């Protein structure tokens, strides 16, 4: 990915005072999934991106952006 897709997952999670484990529980994935997405190591599927956006109550396009 990683240079072509940026995400603000860590910032949004921190803004809501959620730990990686909290967010993982809300989304129904493992903590390593949250970690790898935050670190830009893993590009989530559309379904997971939408689930993350819903859990953080934010539009998916504000969570993930294509790097210019």
């Amino acid at each position, binding site marked *: 990915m990683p240079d072509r897709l940026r995400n603000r997952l860590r910032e949004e999670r921190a803004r809501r005072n959620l730990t990686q484990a909290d967010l993982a529980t809300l989304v129904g994935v493992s*903590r390593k999934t949250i*970690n790898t997405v935050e670190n830009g190591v893993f590009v989530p599927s559309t379904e997971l991106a939408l689930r993350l956006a819903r859990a953080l109550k934010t539009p998916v396009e504000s969570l993930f952006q294509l790097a210019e």
Partner: protein
Amino acid sequence: MQPETTVELADRVSRKRAIGVAAAGLAYLIVQVVARPFFVGGADIDRRVRIDFWGINAIALLLLLATGGGLINSRKVRALVNDEVSRDHYKSAIIAAHWVAMTIAMALYFIPRFSTITAREAIYAVVTPSIIVATLVFSYLELRAHRDA
């Protein structure tokens, strides 16, 4: 002390699995170097035992890779342990193993020009490195995903 949540349990199981798969892959590699079940002579019985042991070991590792292990855990925990990221790691490991197998298989195709090997030896030469690569790539990617988590 607070009870462990499903996510925490899955996290622990996943880490243990990554370490376990790495250890199993390395142990398998060491056994091949030390015992050398094929390509080395010796008493017939001794050689047969080593070859059979190799087969059992290979099947066990293939089953571990195929199932993801952790069958004693609940369905919910297994779903978390084998979630999107782990499935992606599994795919990467299998792709790496596939190319190792193809490369060795093509090399073996040309070997009969120089020497003769049996079908079992050829299977051993293809399967062993492929399994080792699959286990090591999978465990490396899993451990990397756990880092800083």
